[in-house]
């Protein structure tokens, strides 16, 4: 079981390592990435993710415990990245492992649904700001902010 709020890139390979156990017949992973949505201020080039860290970690842990129990999972991850993330970047990875595929798939969908509903994390559109500062859109500011793990 693993929850995290991090300022460095999320790795699906690392999430899979965390989930893979001999008794897991099925591992489902969902990655949510920053989309180039159109807004009134222009096309989104980056989103900034912010969290109320201690409450968000507690909410992630409660969510994970609940989903693990409900679907009898052998493993679960719920990792969210914080900071300014350019379009295409992975912002969230959730995953579930279970002896059978249906439980893993349903649990994975449940994790992302409930994460969005229950965990104090917010995104703010950085389209305009990125343009005004003439920052190259490909440059991930979040990474430059340091790679500290929130816990």
């Amino acid at each position: 079981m693993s929850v995290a709020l991090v300022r460095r890139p999320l790795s699906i390979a690392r999430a899979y390592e965390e989930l893979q156990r001999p008794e897991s017949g099925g591992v489902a992973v969902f990655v949510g990435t920053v989309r180039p949505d159109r807004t009134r201020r222009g096309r989104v080039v980056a989103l900034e993710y912010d969290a109320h860290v201690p409450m968000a970690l507690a909410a992630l842990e409660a969510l994970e415990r609940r989903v693990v129990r409900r679907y009898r999972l052998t493993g679960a991850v719920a990792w969210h990245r914080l900071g300014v993330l350019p379009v295409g970047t992975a912002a969230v990875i959730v995953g579930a492992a279970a002896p059978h595929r249906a439980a893993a798939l349903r649990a994975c969908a449940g994790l992302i649904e409930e994460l969005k509903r229950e965990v104090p994390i917010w995104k703010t559109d950085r389209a305009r700001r990125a343009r005004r500062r003439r920052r190259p859109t490909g440059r991930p500011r979040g990474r430059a902010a340091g790679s500290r793990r929130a816990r």
Partner: protein
Amino acid sequence: MPGSVRLLLFGPAREAVGRAALDRPLAAEGATLGELVDAVAEEFLALRPVLQASRLAVNGRYASDRRLRLAPGDEIAVHPPYSGG
């Protein structure tokens, strides 16, 4: 700051105020959660609609009772609707 409380502003609340945190002195006789929030809404007009849609948390726990008495050092978080993921 002794004798004061800190407001933590997230997402749209931070955008409305332009800051992530505000420190506010407590009245000598203490103040309630409702009084603090009303004072801040008075000060930042753009924060009002956001506050109406937000949940509040005091020291890491959700608090819905506006009569809750605040103590120096309390952290009051303003949680607009979540938009992570």
